[in-house]
């Protein structure tokens, strides 16, 4: 029987791992850096251990220093042992997996080096059967993205000029993608010279989180939520990303970025779009992202003066958190003594479409807050309490559906019930569903999921350029407004609190309050 070689693998039929990764080489630029060390290598090892990856899978580490393959492997092993949730590495698994690790010394801005890289990749293709499939991971300072993309392209390694040979190439870029709309578009323009949009995978690690993906499942796999998921029933939506940590090690980046760019532009906008989007026609990458973009496009731009009333920023001062003394932001090493960088931000925005018109979305994020929690709360309208006059019902909380992203992932619904007895006495009760944490072993990390999705060629969980674009438009408008405001508009707050007192005003003015978390 002659069967065309290209027919799908008959043994994969009905299998739990029906989507399979094709043999490929992942070229990591910045292979000696922090991100590679702490996140990428451990994630690759975990995938190899638990999936597993195809035997041909190959990693080529690229950076400036002179390293041998053996040194790179040694460093990679240390990464796994220090940072993998499955550490220490199993010697037997590592033995064969690490045989696919190679190091290539290269100056990002030296075109000649890319020639030798291309030769090396060809040679590895032959040795390891990787079929000219390449993923380039740019774990480098963003300023190098255009240089690397252009040099890849000139070296015959880009997407557009694959010189007719078989094989695909994809490029993964880290956050931040630009620092405003203009720089994001300029960066994208540069990348597009070498790679088309379908080949570009912009990381937003929130999308790799299990519980974030669950938002879509909750909304669209349950018949009961969708009919009430709109302005007729929902009073407001609150999204909170609270951290207890301070700025930590990445001061240079943070000084430039601040809370708004660091968290709201990407992660919180992703949460917002997932909660607010219309049902996609299917779960294809573009179908989902089309709907997300529509949400971003429908956000009403801030009019003159609205930035002052509808947004707020703060900065933590010195104080105590969890019984320990902590430095104020301006005292952190590397931070300017008069730094205007915000470590807290709160804002109110509206989505001007049929589903959401008139429903305020309140977002808040800060460092050094009371506790670490990420939550989306859908607050429903109050019912008319006439029936229950004199029972205290008007003091009760409205129904709230809360989606907790971390920690204690789960869903809870707050509703009112009668206290048993002769009296009509009401009480709010919380109905909780906690997702079980899988036993003993920790769940996969965001980077594992995202790396796997890219290897599979599925970009649903990556940010498309128009998402980035519309999100920057909003952020830029806020930044412009802030630039015109006096220094006193940066409110100081005590570590361990829920942020500046003025944040309460932002919402209480509307007759609402922030959720007590």
């Amino acid at each position, binding site marked *: 029987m002659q069967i065309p070689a290209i027919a799908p693998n008959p043994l*994969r039929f*009905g299998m739990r791992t029906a989507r399979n990764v094709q043999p490929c080489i992942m070229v990591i630029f910045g292979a000696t850096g922090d991100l590679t060390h702490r996140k990428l290598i451990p994630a690759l090892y975990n995938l190899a*251990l638990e999936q597993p990856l195809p035997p041909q899978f190959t990693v080529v580490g690229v950076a400036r220093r002179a390293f041998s393959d053996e040194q790179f492997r040694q460093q990679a092993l240390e990464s796994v042992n220090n940072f993998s949730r499955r550490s220490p590495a199993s010697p*037997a698994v590592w033995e064969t997996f690490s045989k696919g690790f190679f190091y290539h010394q290269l100056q990002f801005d030296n075109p000649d080096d890319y020639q030798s890289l291309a030769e090396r990749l060809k040679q590895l293709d032959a040795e390891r*059967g990787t079929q000219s499939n390449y993923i380039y991971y740019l774990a480098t300072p963003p300023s190098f993205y255009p240089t690397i993309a252009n040099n890849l392209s000139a070296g015959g390694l880009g997407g557009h000029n694959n010189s007719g040979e078989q094989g695909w190439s994809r490029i993964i870029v880290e956050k931040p993608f630009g620092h405003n709309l203009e720089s994001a578009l300029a960066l994208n323009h540069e990348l597009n010279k070498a790679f088309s949009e379908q080949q570009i995978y912009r990381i937003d690690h929130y999308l790799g989180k299990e519980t974030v993906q669950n938002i879509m499942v909750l909304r669209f796999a349950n018949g009961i939520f969708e009919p009430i998921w709109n302005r007729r029933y929902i009073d407001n939506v609150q999204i909170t990303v609270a951290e207890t940590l301070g700025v930590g090690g990445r001061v240079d980046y943070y000084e430039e970025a601040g809370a708004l760019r660091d968290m709201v532009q990407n992660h919180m906008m992703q949460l917002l779009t997932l909660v607010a989007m219309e049902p996609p026609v299917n779960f294809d990458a573009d179908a989902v992202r089309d709907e997300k973009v529509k949400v971003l496009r429908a956000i009403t731009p801030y009019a003159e003066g609205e930035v002052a009333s509808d947004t707020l920023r703060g900065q933590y001062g010195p104080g105590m958190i969890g019984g320990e003394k902590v430095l104020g932001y301006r005292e952190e090493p590397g931070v300017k003594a008069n730094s205007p960088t915000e470590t807290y931000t709160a804002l109110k925005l509206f989505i001007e479409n049929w589903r959401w018109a008139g429903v305020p979305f309140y977002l808040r994020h800060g460092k050094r807050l009371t506790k670490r929690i990420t939550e989306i709360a859908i607050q429903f309208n109050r019912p008319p309490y006439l029936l229950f006059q004199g029972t205290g019902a008007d003091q009760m909380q409205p129904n709230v559906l809360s989606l907790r992203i971390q920690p204690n992932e789960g869903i809870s619904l707050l509703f009112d019930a009668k206290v048993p007895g002769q009296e009509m006495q009401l009480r709010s009760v919380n109905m909780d569903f*906690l997702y*079980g944490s*899988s036993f003993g072993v920790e769940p996969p990390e965001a980077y594992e999921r995202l790396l796997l999705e890219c290897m599979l060629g599925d970009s649903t969980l990556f940010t498309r350029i128009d998402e980035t674009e519309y999100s920057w438009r909003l952020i830029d408008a806020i930044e412009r407004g802030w630039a015109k405001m006096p220094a006193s508009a940066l409110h100081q707050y005590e570590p361990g609190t829920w942020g500046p007192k003025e944040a309460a005003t932002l919402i209480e003015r509307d007759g609402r309050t922030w959720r007590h978390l």
Partner: protein
Amino acid sequence: MSETQTSFAGLRPVELDAVERELDHLWRDANLQIASTAGHAIARNSVLTLVTVTTTEAEAQQLQGLIHSLSAQHPSRAIVVAADASKADEGITGYIGTYTGQGNSYGEDIVLSAGGASVSHLPGVVLPLIVSGLPSFLWWTSEPPWGSELLEAMVDGCDRFIIDTSEMSNVAHSIRSLDDLMRRKSARCAISDISWTAQAPWRDIVAQFFDSVVVRPFIYNVERLTIEYAAGDEYMPSNSSQAYLFAGWLASRLGWHIRLAQPTPGDGSMQHTLHDASGRIVALEVNARYGIPQQGGLIQFEKEERDEGVFVRPGALMSIYIAARIDGQLGTFAVARERDLEHATTACQVPQASMPSQTIHLASVGETDPLAQQLGNLGHDSVYEEALAATALMMGASSSRRGIS
């Protein structure tokens, strides 16, 4: 809250008609206690009902820990039934308890124990306790009483029936009976086998060889398939269920003909002659293996080694070897368990293609927690069902009833 309830002994007896009411009370009491310490109330959610049938109360007790550990992923109502027809008939006794444990795990337990003639009344007590509207799983931990009213009624009342044919003393008989049950009950209840789930990693690894388009044609040209499984000893008898299910899987996926597959017992092995979809011969050999191959001969696994944890259950797959030929060119594909018994390593040789070898940690890809994976499957697994049908044929089921050749 700490572990309130882990042992069977800690459960409280309950009248059979008061199980639901008493469980409500238990949860309420637990929450009252927590409210008084200002803790976070415990939820009472379930995503499924797991009915486990064992023989003795001692076995039922032993299973508690395992069942609780499953609840971390699948908060559930667990009903454990100790049904021992050989025991004196003292009616059916019931016990209940709730627990919260490590991580976010929580759940509720119901234990029912019956002897003698009361065993046949169990379905009437068990089935109403299944949480309505949620999936229900029936796990029979030992050889089920094939054809009995008890089994038929229980299977009819659940969505998924789980057994482990690698625990059965007569594999051929169990596989044939299960195949028969599957065909009769397919409209109501899905059938599944822990033995099948446990070897999933091996199927993944073998499938992976043929993901590469260069290598793929070889799978349609197999000449020889050799499967080895861990032999047993006087304490744990040998069991070929995993090996034959693996062969049944390949045969059903590749359209092999099994009719003439009657085995010829060879030198410590079973030999079958199958035919591939084009009618060419495929030689299948199924071997029980007493050691791990090493350069210079086999290593026996010693009894002491087992006690120290280097241990693999009899029946576990030890190696798969496939030889295929295209235009006279030989391709070989092998996976073999390593000496440490926890890893398997691949070796593949094909003309004009390179395929590095790979070592896999079997527990990390699911060899050791097949039951938890079973609870994640809700519907019918058609690949398994086809593999089971093929395996049953290999093990002597009559093919005429089914129109399979």
